């Protein structure tokens, strides 16, 4: 018998269920008064440096129906590519936001500043992007993906370069719909399925 490894195995995920908001965005569930306010209401505070942008979209299932119960979290650096807590990071950018698909329309909306570029471990620069994590009823393991931007140079991004089917790259790129306005729909399954990440 070889020596025994004392490593542990990660705890198994389970779906967040339909009432994920109770724990993560209580005011959405109709619960007021437990906390002063929901956590992650906005990734920025007034005075955040950089271009303010708004990204809207839906999380769409394999039948084409927009989820009304999805929870999304976003994580990003400031406009200079520094994450909260790193030296020189913009104090007005926490970088973390939580938002829910609207219970009637399924639309979500993220208002933030456009992130700066961050290098990969190889030292290679990644194109500016926002990391997303999606939890909902029926999603057994939370889904990671990224939002890139149509009006940035994405040609040398190492993650996008790894996508073999080049016709799928566009599923990670937000479409510009106006000055500072973008559209980013997330397709869980089926035609135009978003590239999800094991990262």
């Amino acid at each position, binding site marked *: 018998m070889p020596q025994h490894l004392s*490593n*542990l*195995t*990660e*705890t*198994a*995920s*389970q*779906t*967040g*269920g339909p*009432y*994920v*908001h*109770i*724990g993560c965005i209580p005011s959405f*569930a*109709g*619960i007021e*008064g*437990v*906390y*002063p306010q929901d*956590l*992650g209401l906005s990734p920025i505070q007034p005075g955040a440096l950089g271009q303010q942008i708004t990204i809207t979209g839906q999380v769409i*299932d*394999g039948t084409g129906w927009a*989820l009304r119960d999805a929870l999304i979290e976003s*994580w*990003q*650096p400031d406009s200079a590519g520094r994450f*909260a*807590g790193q030296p020189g990071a913009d104090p007005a950018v926490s970088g*973390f936001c939580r938002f829910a698909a609207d219970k009637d329309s399924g639309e979500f909306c993220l208002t933030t500043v456009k992130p700066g570029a*961050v*290098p*990969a*471990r*190889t030292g290679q620069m*990644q194109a500016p992007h926002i*990391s997303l*994590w999606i939890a909902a*009823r*029926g*999603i*057994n*393991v*939370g*889904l*990671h993906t990224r939002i890139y931007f149509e009006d940035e140079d994405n040609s040398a991004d*190492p*993650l996008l370069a*790894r996508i073999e089917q080049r016709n799928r790259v566009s599923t990670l790129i937000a479409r510009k719909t106006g000055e500072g306005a973008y559209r980013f729909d997330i397709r869980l*399954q089926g035609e135009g*399925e*978003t590239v*999800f*990440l*094991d*990262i």
Partner: protein
Amino acid sequence: MTDLGPLVPRQRDMHPVPYDPDYKTSVPRSPKWPLLSMESTPSEETGPRFGHGVIGPLDNNLMLNFATDGSPAIGERILVHGQVLDEFARPVPNTLIEIWQANAGGRYRHIKDTYLAPLDPNFGGCGRTLTDDQGRYQFLTIRPGAYPWPNRGNEWRPMHIHFSVFGHSFGQRLITQMYFEGDPLIARCPIAATIKNRSQLDRLVAPLDMPMARPLDFLAYKFDIVLRGRRQTMFENRLEGL
């Protein structure tokens, strides 16, 4: 000497299958194409940090944090406690844990829950805390009831508490559920059964922890959580050209 390296890749076979016909909602909501696997980058290795400033004194006491008329919530009083570790058995200190659950009758306080069991005016159903310097946490709550849900003809969820854990990296983000030792509904639950590895499911079942129970007050259950680790070696080379 050592460098905090990349996140250890997730062992997907230790997690639930994304697509499971017995859990009907997973059918249209599970990606069909393989995930894109890549080494983590600072975008996944960093993550939001939350300080003690955001945590109120009753945030981890669900018996009292929604006590609108001052009385504690109705139900079997329990302490839920445990430790958050990473895959290398290192404690994960100062990390945010959020929980949510149904009340003792199996009813959630949510605009969309219409189950006929009544709401408890003194129970909100959410709590949060930060782990201490050893990764330990505690919640005081009531034991949630089992409840029916629409899936197959006669489906009931076992008693469970939802857990959301942050860790220190966005790539460690985890939502899971804690079950209770001895609940016969666990073996009948298609959501629990999305986990195909038996020992991984067993690890979601919290044992009764009598030494931690407080006489004449509450029972206790222990629920430890393991998050992804980050490799820590002297040899974290920068791989070029990948």
